């Protein structure tokens, strides 16, 4: 187990190194010169050359990459080209908002998905089941920007129940969290449904029923705890999907998280910020996958660690 853990950790570190290299390379070959962005329109050629030298952007690619890695080892993500602030500081100031949104999004996703899945399993084959499964298909087919604009239009503009965007209170959190939750809820509904159907057919449930326990008690005390764990363990894998979603959702709802930071940085080719957000996202995804790999076998003994 310990050697497996070590191997997985080393693998993860190598994956992150690869992500850093590829992103750095893509940004290097990007047909846009960050120095031009920094220098502005009135800059003379010597101003441009000076800025390029100051940032080390006149160095060859490998030298630039190694210097960046060297900084990373000291926890230095560099300075934003345009904001001139330490990128670590920028990320740190925005990460709480993204984490809050993700936590709320995952909560929504689970609440919606698990409820739908359980209800569908208990009405298996009947009309309710079909409607719920159809709904689960719709949620996975709806792009987040359409859902967010629709929620904004109905609940913020027409009904004025929630603010149109922004950050700070619980009311600001609801619409973006629901938008994030809706996409994943369909998957959880379907996983929960199969898991629940499987458990309900198991011997111990039949025994419990034979003992004369009420259906509600059987479902709540015996079936649910067993069916729900394998599904919840999937959250780790979900993080990658969420990291993509925050770019769109934060932009539409003016949520001050790292997705918004990333989108602004991409538009202005602020390379240190793009690198940092990509790496932070990759770390989140890798940790999520690691957790899933370690937790799933623990919960579900049918799956063995390789």
């Amino acid at each position, binding site marked *: 187990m310990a050697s497996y853990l070590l191997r997985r950790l080393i693998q993860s570190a190598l994956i992150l190194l690869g992500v850093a290299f590829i992103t750095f390379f893509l940004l290097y070959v*990007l*047909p*846009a*010169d*960050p120095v*031009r*962005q*920094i*220098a*502005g*329109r*009135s*800059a*003379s*050629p*010597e*101003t*441009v050359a*000076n*800025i390029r*030298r*100051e*940032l080390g952007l006149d160095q060859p690619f490998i030298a630039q990459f190694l210097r960046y890695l060297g900084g990373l080892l000291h926890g230095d993500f560099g*300075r934003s080209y*345009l*904001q*001139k*602030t*330490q990128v670590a*500081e*920028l990320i740190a*100031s*925005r990460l709480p*908002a993204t984490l809050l949104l993700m936590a709320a999004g995952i909560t929504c996703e689970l609440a919606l998905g698990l409820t739908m899945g359980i209800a569908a399993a208990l009405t298996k084959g009947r009309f309710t089941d079909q409607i719920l499964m159809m709904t689960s298909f719709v949620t996975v087919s709806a792009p987040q920007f359409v859902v967010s604009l629709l929620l904004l239009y109905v609940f913020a*503009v027409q009904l004025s129940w929630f603010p*149109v*965007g*922004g*950050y700070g209170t619980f009311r600001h959190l609801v619409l973006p969290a629901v938008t994030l939750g809706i996409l994943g809820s369909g998957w959880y509904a379907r996983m929960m449904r199969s898991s629940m159907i499987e458990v309900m057919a198991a011997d111990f449930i039949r025994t419990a029923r034979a003992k004369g326990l009420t259906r509600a008690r059987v479902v709540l005390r015996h079936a649910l705890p067993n069916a729900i764990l394998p599904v919840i363990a999937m959250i780790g894998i979900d993080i990658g999907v969420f990291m993509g979603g925050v770019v769109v959702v934060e932009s539409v709802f*003016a*949520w*001050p998280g790292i997705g*918004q*930071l990333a989108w*602004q940085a*991409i*538009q*202005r*080719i602020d390379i240190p910020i793009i690198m940092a957000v990509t790496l932070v996202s990759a770390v989140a995804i890798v940790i999520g996958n690691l957790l899933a790999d370690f937790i799933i076998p623990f919960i579900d003994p049918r799956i063995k660690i390789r």
Partner: protein
Amino acid sequence: MKKLLASTALVLALSVPALAQDYTPDPAAKQGGEITVTYHDDVATLDPAIGYDWQNWSMIKSLFDGLMDYVPGTTTLRPGLAESYDVSKDGMTFTFHLRAGVKFTNGRAMTADDVKYSLDRVTLPATQSPGAGFFSSIKGYDKMADGSATNLEGVKVVDPLTVEITLNRPDATFLQVMALNFSYIVAKEAVEASGADFGKHPVGTGAFKLTDWTLGQQLVFERNADYWRAGEPYLDKITFQVGQEPVVALLRLQKGEIDIAGDGIPPAKFTEVMADPAQKALVVSQASLQTGYITMNLNVAPFDKLEVREAINMAINKDRITQIINGRATPTGQVLPPGMPGYDPDFKGFAYDPAAAKALLAKAGFADGFETQLFVYNTDPNPRIAQAIQQDLANIGVKAAIQSLAQANVIQAGGEPTSAPMIWSGGMAWAADFPDPSDFFGPILSCQAADPGGWNWAHYCNKDLDAAATAADAMTDPAQTADRMKAWSAIMGKVMADAPWVPVFNETRYTMHSPRLGGASALYADPVATPVNFDYIYVKP
């Protein structure tokens, strides 16, 4: 990077400022009150040597001061930290006499050493100031740029309240440069203490001081009680919220949650706001010192042919394009915007005439048209305007493929010799840094700017006009101002005879504020302190 400097009646104040008109305070103005302003984009930095954005331009003006300043709501120069100045006969040496008793917000008195330090700092390559080039007429600038000097030879401290600046060539725009944010005076010890983070911890002599900054969310400015202009500013506190979509900001303004939507009225809400008399009364409009244009790259065939460039000029339906942006602009046919000195109201340019354009194209040997590319910055409404241009071009047989890209990519393609055949300038359009026609030529139409990486996206180079421009800027005597502007009108007329651009329209800026705010309309459409002059607006008692 949009700075829009507008002007209605500009008098180049080259006379001794004591004689220049100054601001008459608003009798209704009272000190006190707090307001909230929103922007979409994050505030990048508040370092005056570096900040060059729409939103931080006026913030920096509220935190710092320069030797020169503008009368609020106008483009008329007035003295700032310099009480007065003398100019030598040859126009090459300026002696500034500083005000006594001006203090930085850290309590220390400002002296001539700070002026010298600030000008050295902005021209030092390590500062990475995008505005360093503005100071190229100061003696010793070249040595700063190539790294062989660490202080400007031409800037001398005579005594604690006197600074002498020597130029290397006559420069009629020098006093305007001394009123530009990049020349603002910073406190040396604060810069040294904060290092690269000075932009987050600014210390200046301005009307306000920064008291709180939550990155990505909000900034708080509080009144500088020791401000050297007695009785100013009026507001106690300004909260700037960032990350707010323009549409959302306007909705909040309508609900009374905020006082000023810094990004203006978004197109989607424009008709609604203007249809309601109560809301319309809160809107201030101002023609901006800006021109939207299409560049045609002279390095790329067939734009090397004058007939082709003329034909394109006649093919564009500017009225339709103006309609698409809800009439928030005025069609134009020349480079300089109205209100800019040197603008020629009698110059009409090319009239819309697709039939004549087609005939001209046939004469140039392109009866069946040709294929080309049109680059455009991918934010609304620019891709829409590009599609309207595309349709106009299709009418005369020119097939233009649209490349809708991030701003950085368009700028990059424009700077390369042959990458971008045509560019629609929207969103990156030239807006003056200071109200002088030279700023509309040197950086975007001169031979030097046509070098790779420059902003002369037409790659237009006419050596005769370059020489004429240099001659015009050497006319530093205030008595020559009228002649100088005539010379500039002639230069711009000759540019259009070569037709490297299709000038399309001059935008009008609309700002809306909450009903509780007072102050002259001109302050909410300040041509210099964009978008709003925060030092002079007030909350109605």
